[in-house]
């Protein structure tokens, strides 16, 4: 910690070093055992590792359990309305490309009420990290079926079990034109989660990360087998995606998948034989909307000059 004590020797703006504690917001009030805690920790670790200034960082969320996230990070935060985090984040980034923007959504937020925004945000490819914390259920409103609830899984709205096959968010995102980063990870694999978040942050473009997340109250059993049995997990690894060699001891099924290969990515996204984690697809050459639209700003005097020229065309 350099900082205030050195202010006699250095300008006050001297960069200070941020620790994880500097990103600690309000005390998280998720249930004990909720996977969201793990995501919060990994994110704070990333912020510290990347030394992101809290004042230049914005967390945008919708409504739901996971959307409380911004309150628990010491940065600027925007806890908006259900399903609409992505438009708000897009507006922030269009106006202020200098800010680091993270979006935190739940599965209901992203794949149900806000599904249109998910599709279009993927196509806009605005530089931001979009985390979808997928616990396969509506938690805050107490256990209603979500689009990602497995078929046959019982809930308060579908007590005989979910009627339809679960929506596959990775497959859906890969299907969107101009998708540039699509990854999946799991909150019970902290090292993998961290590596994925880091790759998402470093990606130039819209980085969509689906985080498989246990809800200990309503869907504790859905991922139980996968948590207990590492053989159910396949890791997608590549120097252009992520590599987590420390986990090879536990997760022995490692697939050297080139994230530039969209056909292979789609093929793997479709498969249900095991859970695949890692970067499915990544292509930084895709156009970014905010870059395409970015224009130099003008001074007030310049603007008045241009506006008068334009008004001349309508002069009587």
């Amino acid at each position, binding site marked *: 910690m350099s900082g205030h004590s050195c202010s006699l020797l250095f300008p006050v703006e001297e960069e200070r070093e941020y620790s994880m504690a500097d990103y600690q917001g309000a005390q998280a009030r998720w249930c004990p055992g909720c996977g969201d805690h793990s995501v919060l920790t990994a994110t704070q670790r990333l912020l510290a590792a990347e030394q992101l200034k809290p004042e230049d960082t914005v967390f945008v969320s919708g409504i739901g359990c996971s959307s409380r996230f911004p*309150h628990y990070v010491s*940065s600027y935060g925007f806890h908006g309305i259900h399903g609409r985090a992505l*438009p708000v984040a897009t*507006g922030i980034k*269009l*106006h202020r490309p200098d800010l680091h923007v993270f979006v935190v959504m739940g599965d209901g937020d992203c794949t149900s009420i806000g599904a*249109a925004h998910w599709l279009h945000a993927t196509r806009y490819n605005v530089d931001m990290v979009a985390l979808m914390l997928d616990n396969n259920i509506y938690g805050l409103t107490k256990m209603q079926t979500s689009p990602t609830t497995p078929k046959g899984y019982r809930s308060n709205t579908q007590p005989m079990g979910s009627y339809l096959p679960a929506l596959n968010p990775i497959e859906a995102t890969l299907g969107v034109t101009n998708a540039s980063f699509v990854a999946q990870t799991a909150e019970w694999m902290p090292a993998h989660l961290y590596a994925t978040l880091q790759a998402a942050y470093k990606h130039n473009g819209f980085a969509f990360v689906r985080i498989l997340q246990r809800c200990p109250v309503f869907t504790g059993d859905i991922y139980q087998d996968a948590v207990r049995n590492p053989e159910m997990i396949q890791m997608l690894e590549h120097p252009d995606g992520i590599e987590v060699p420390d986990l090879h001891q536990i997760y022995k099924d490692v697939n050297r998948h080139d994230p530039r290969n969209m056909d292979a990515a789609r093929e793997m996204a479709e498969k249900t034989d095991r859970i695949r984690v890692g970067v499915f697809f990544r292509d930084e050459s895709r156009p970014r909307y905010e870059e395409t*639209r970015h224009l130099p700003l003008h001074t007030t005097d310049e*603007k008045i000059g241009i506006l008068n020229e334009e008004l001349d065309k309508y002069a009587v």
Partner: protein
Amino acid sequence: MTTNASATDTATDESRTDIDVEVIRDRVHTVEIVSDSGEGAQKCGQIFGAVSAKMGNGVWTVEIIPAEIQPPARSPAGASGNRIRIGTKEVTNWGDRTNVCVAFNEQVLLARHRLDAIEPGALILVENMWKEHRDEDVRAEWRAAMDELEGCGYRIIEVPMEERCLTVVDDARKGKNMFALGMLAWIFDRDLDLTRDQIAYAFRKKSEEVYEKNVTLLELGYAWAGENLDIRIDIPPGLGGEDMVVMNGNQAVAFGAVAAGMELAAMYPITPATSVSHQLGEIFHKFGGIVHQAEDEIAAAGVAIGASYSGKVAFTITSGPGLALKTEFLGLAIMSEIPLVVVDVQRGGPSTGLPTKVEQSDLLATIFGQPGDAPHVVMAAATIEECFHSMITARRIAETFRTVVIVLSDANLATGVQPFRRPSLDPVWMGSRPDTGPVPESKPPYDWDEDTGLSQRFIPGQPGGMHTVTGLAHDEASHVAYASDINQKSSAMRSRKIAVLNSTMQPPKVNGSDSGDLLIVGWGSTKGAIEEAVETAREQGLSVSSLHLRFLSPLEPGLKEIFQRFGKVMTVEINYSDEPDAPFITAENRRRGQLAWLLRAATLVDVDCWTRVLGEPLRPGVILDVIRSNIAKGGAA
């Protein structure tokens, strides 16, 4: 103007060689050009209006628009075109009926006739190709139409537009409009050089050849009129001296937004608001501005709010159905005190309603539309000039009061074209970029002043100001708070700001005497028609005045005191109200005009109303009848 006057003399002399030409001199006159959709009548009308404005005439133009892009040809429902009312002085509304009508077929002419849009004695120039058409059905339709129009006192002149235009172009559908413009230019003695310039501007995106052909057609129409018509109309230009600009209300909104210093507009296409974004699309990038066409109305609101949250105030543009979709987001902006400007260009409703037609039915929805208590500002532009200036006022209020400001316009202002005083641009209008300096230690993001509810806004990038805005109930620190006292206080703080804004306003000025038998209260685009009717009524000795409101929420101060000086107070609006004598209607269950609801609640004065939803602007003559009958009914009591 003087050079034009000499041109007039020359033209008149030439044409008088073989026909005895009658010249009608008038202070105000109305012209309509109607055609099937796609035949360019609107372009003809727009150019005629612009040329007239540039010559120093007062002008008001209204589009006549069918709801479909390509409705069936030769059908009354497909009538498309323009009404242009020109005058010696400023023209503030579209008038009652047209004095001149150019029709490209007899069916669209019938449509206007049946809508009582044509003045008895009007000069009608109608394409005659249908009379001898090879299709017997068409010939029969022509005969039936002429029978219907006979005896209405119109002066109908059959014009071989098709035949003449085919000497220049292969497809006369693409040329009649300029031929018609030529005829009108002769009749109204328009400056041909100005007309050619205006044609060049209208076709600036087309080739030189297109321009040449259009000018040839213009001259052809001018020459035909000179050889065949025996009537000219002289509306002496009486404006001048001041710098003016001429544009429609949506263009004025776009320019106003730029002058207000806003840099991001988010929208989704919706009639009749969309053309604001067309105008911005042409110019905004020159100022570093972005027009974001979002995936839907909701996202448009979200992008604008995200942009506003992180810096300068942004805005979104919509119409009724889109406003309904944005409602939840507007509640969030109000709750979290994020400034935002929303433009609602009203159309007929509810639901899809009358997309291309004027109505003032969104007033209560804009004020009370958000669930929960959501105090914010609603203002309405009354003229095209005010469409421009409202944007500047709205941006400043949104910023100062950290709230949502909804600016109401409507289809009449959006598509109407009128010259107005050229704005003298002021750097102050643009505001300054928000401060990104450090926030004083321990200053909370909602540091509400106990009296005014006002607080300073922090934006991302400001060290020490980190907080999470939320749509949940929150305290000064923006911490989620469900405690009852905090919710009571924060509700009071958000509401107080509106009262503070109200306290900064002056009472509105009464048009006419300060007291009398009847006071007509209006808002929005009806101002010109109401004031013209009031002026005529006063000339006829009736004791009537009018009041026009720009602020609807909060209402302008002093209304009760003004109302008490009149025998009767009533609103005139373009929204629905029950007729007092209709079946089942009582004084208690009567649904009144939307402004009347507000005024009754705010003043406890028994404010009456007269409203219509005919899908067209109000006619001053009709308002005059309303004034007469209400004074006769005992307004003087």
